[in-house]
């Protein structure tokens, strides 16, 4: 065997180099261990953050899926235990001004963490988390500082959700109030026009009549003056008609006097004459089961539909059907016009359609439009009706 001849110096150098390498490797290893520890710590933290995120996403989902505040609060309370370190030992309660909800395993203990729920700056309740048994001490009693962040975040979310619900409720009240005020206004204006304007016109017409008598008595050959007076009289007649029409569209007396059936017949009659559109109606309902608010709302919806049809539809036929269907009354207004795009969401709806939708909603009902370009339009309103046993109007 041929081995290179190594001197002592060479060997010492090699040993030195080896020792350096080992030291370097040890340093790398130490760094590696450190990195590993950091990684584990980061993964653990991510795991916890993930729980938090899961919890918060879960809350968003609960809000989306539920309408009633109580259901939402219950859903949120149920999401709490999985977000904490020891889910099996965790129970939660949400104390809220509208009521209290708790997880099924709820028990009050001394190991408690709470976050205040604030609405518009004032505390209206709290999110409470309890451990059912003792556990290792952490940053805040047995709870982590991350859990403090989480509970505060949940409490803040509940506060915001409550504010949103309150705003929705106020909006609904305002909308209902607006409609009531609007109808009262219309009734008042209609009454004033009826009581004052019409009478004054009648008086004016009498003066014109007298003027004509005197003039044709004194100057029987003044054809021009006589014809001017005749024209003035004709204009007064037109104003009477227009006034009657305004009153009728503001607040039709016939609706209050004779009911929906007759009022719609008159409305359609007038509409048919003005537009030349062929109208038919079938109103098969027991008017005794409708209250005044429902009656006027249905009338307005029909009125608005007809306005839309005369303006946009280019239709030749209109049909109105109103019938009882078990727990609800269904009103349909259909036309054979050009139709319009009614997508899944009430996207670019005009105020007219929104108004109809709103009136239906205020009655606790539903509104839908079925339409396709060239295939006509059908508007449907369904409102719940209280059926009673006794003899009513």
């Amino acid at each position, binding site marked *: 065997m041929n081995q290179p001849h190594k001197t002592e110096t060479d060997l010492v150098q090699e040993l030195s180099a080896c020792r350096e390498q080992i030291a370097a490797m040890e340093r790398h290893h130490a760094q590696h261990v450190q990195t590993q520890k950091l990684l584990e710590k980061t993964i653990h933290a991510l795991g916890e953050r993930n729980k938090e995120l899961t919890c918060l996403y879960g809350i968003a989902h609960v809000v989306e899926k539920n309408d009633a505040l109580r259901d939402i609060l219950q859903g949120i309370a149920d999401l709490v235990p999985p977000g904490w370190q020891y889910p099996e030992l965790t129970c939660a309660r949400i104390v809220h001004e509208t009521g209290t909800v708790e997880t099924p395993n709820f028990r009050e203990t001394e190991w408690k963490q709470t976050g205040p729920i604030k609405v518009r700056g004032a505390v209206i309740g709290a999110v409470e988390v309890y451990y059912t048994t003792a556990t290792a001490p952490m940053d805040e009693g047995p709870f982590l500082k991350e859990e403090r962040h989480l509970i505060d975040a949940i409490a803040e979310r509940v506060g915001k959700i409550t504010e949103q619900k309150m705003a929705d409720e106020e909006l609904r009240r305002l909308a209902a109030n607006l409609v009531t005020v609007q109808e009262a206004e219309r009734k008042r204006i209609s009454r004033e026009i*009826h*009581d004052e304007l*019409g*009478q*004054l*016109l*009648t*008086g004016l*017409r*009498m*003066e014109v*009549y*007298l003027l004509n*008598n005197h003039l044709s008595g004194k100057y029987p050959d003044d054809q021009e003056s006589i014809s001017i007076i005749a024209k003035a*009289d004709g204009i007064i*007649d037109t104003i*009477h*008609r227009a006034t*009657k029409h305004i*009153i009728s569209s503001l607040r039709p*007396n*016939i609706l209050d*006097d*004779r*009911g929906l*059936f*007759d009022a719609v017949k008159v409305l359609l009659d007038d509409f048919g004459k003005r537009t030349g559109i062929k109208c038919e109606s*079938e*109103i*098969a*309902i*027991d008017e*005794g089961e409708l209250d005044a608010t429902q009656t006027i709302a249905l009338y307005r919806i029909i009125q608005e539909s007809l306005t839309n049809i005369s303006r946009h539809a280019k239709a030749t036929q209109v049909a109105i059907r109103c*019938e*009882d269907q078990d727990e609800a009354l269904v009103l349909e207004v259909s036309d054979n016009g050009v139709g319009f795009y009614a997508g899944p969401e009430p996207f670019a709806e005009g105020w007219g359609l929104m108004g109809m939708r709103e009136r239906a909603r205020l009655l606790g009902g539903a509104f839908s439009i079925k339409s396709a370009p060239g295939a006509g339009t059908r508007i449907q309103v369904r409102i719940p009706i209280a059926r009673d046993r006794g*003899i*009513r*109007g």
Partner: protein
Amino acid sequence: MIRVFITDDHEIVREGLKRIVSDTEDMVVCGDAASGEELLRRAETEAWDVLVLDINLPGINGLEVIQRIGATKPGTKIVAFTMYDEASHALRVMRAGAKGFLSKTRPPVELLDAIRKVHSGGRYVTSSLAEYMFEKDIDLKKEPHQTMSAREYEIFLLLGKGKKPKEIAEQLEVSYSTVTTYVSRVKSKLSVNSIGEIVQYAFRHRLTD
């Protein structure tokens, strides 16, 4: 000379009416009043041929005035007036005893025609009102429930007994909308606005015994 008395609470209209009637050769204004009470007071001592009366008066309403005049001064003919809706009031007003009825929106000359017509013993209604009455098959000489067709009467009796429209439709085996059409016609003939009033009418006339 036709002796005319005018009652209307609106001053401008009342004054206009007075002047129009005065201006007419065959008529004379005997007086005017702004309320039913005033009219009835003057009726105790005065005599007229034709009374022109707004049915929407403050205080005692026009219908009651017509009935009272009919009772105390049966020879006086009444022409009743309303601002707008003839159809709603016509039946009640005519059945109460008015011989003429028209809207204040009509040309003044029609009022004069009405006065003359009722004075000579006839009735006066506008052509649109006449059409309405014809459409609803209204006969003023008979009792309201005697002017109904067989079917209308049948449904009227059932309503009077307390049956609801839905039950009637089932019982008679007709469509619900047919029944509601008839309900509307019965309401028109009886001059009532609700099924409750139909029941009351049936009870008053002992038609459900």
